[in-house]
């Protein structure tokens, strides 16, 4: 498939990447968009992997929530688009 829409994945696709960074199951964590205030589980957000890193966007307004780049033994995590990330204590 080459349709543009099929380049879009969802937060389930970065469950492994987030798991290796945070050592937590992150797809059920909930993030509040810093742009429009919509709250979504990470599993629900839009994810684009066809870039040098993963770009995570709010499904409601399109704001970039998170950018994650992994390389040369490091992670760069830009979370400036997320106002709040809520995790339930185990």
């Amino acid at each position, binding site marked *: *498939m*080459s*349709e543009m*829409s*099929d*380049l*879009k*994945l*969802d*937060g*389930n*696709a970065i*469950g*492994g990447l987030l*798991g*290796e960074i945070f*050592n*937590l*199951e992150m*797809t*059920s*964590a*909930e993030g509040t968009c810093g742009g429009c205030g919509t709250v979504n*589980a*990470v*599993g*629900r957000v839009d994810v684009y*992997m*066809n870039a040098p890193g993963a770009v995570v966007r709010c499904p409601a307004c399109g704001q970039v929530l998170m950018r994650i780049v992994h390389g040369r033994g490091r992670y760069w995590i830009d979370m400036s688009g997320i106002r709040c990330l*809520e*995790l*339930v*204590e*185990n």
Partner: protein
Amino acid sequence: MGRLIVPTKLSWQIGEVTDIVRETPRVATLTIDVPAWSGHLAGQHVDVRLTADDGYQAQRSYSIASPPEESRLAITVERLEDGEVSPYLVGELRPKDKVELRGPIGGFFVWRAGDPRRLLLVAGGSGIVPLMAMIRHRAAVGDQTPVRLLYSSRTFEDVIYRHELERLAGANQTLTVAHTLTRSQAPGWTGYARRLDGAMVEEVAWPASDHPQVFICGPTSFVEAAAGLLVDHGYEPGWIKTERFGATGG
């Protein structure tokens, strides 16, 4: 329920392929023995990593097909001709070969038996895999939650788990399976013969007044079309959980 956070130590493990079953011309199920497997939930996936002789690595996510009740892990993989990983997994891999994987991954797209809500499962192509783990989980524990599966495939030969679905639906009246074939149909085909549409959803999906729980898995365009039709049918977006696989797969 939806926000349970399970701490995981996500490290790469080596599994040994014990069995390979060809499901369709392009799809195979690999059963993998992972010595320290921690167990999983229906709907979760694993990441599989291949390393070439020169150190180049390619990694893809595959849904777990086996229910939590089975000790051996099974993944069902569709071979994508231009893929980097799937042509190796479906075609070259043999029993006793080793594969590197990590998981289980995911806590959002997960169904646990005992949830009282009626269940609607909508699959496009190999999107059936995590939904099959849910159906098998339900069968393994004898859960009687009414389930309807709407499953879209290209052709009859592309229907994954066809016999098992027939058997399970025949043995248990609380499971209903509706197939649609979008590309070609054999003479005498009695299922649907078109892409998902509002009339099909009207006939197959639970009425909105039932407040069902919905899992949709398939290519991104399929998932978005199906979710849109269900919202038009009166479902709340919050009832619907989706998992997409797109052009980065394979």
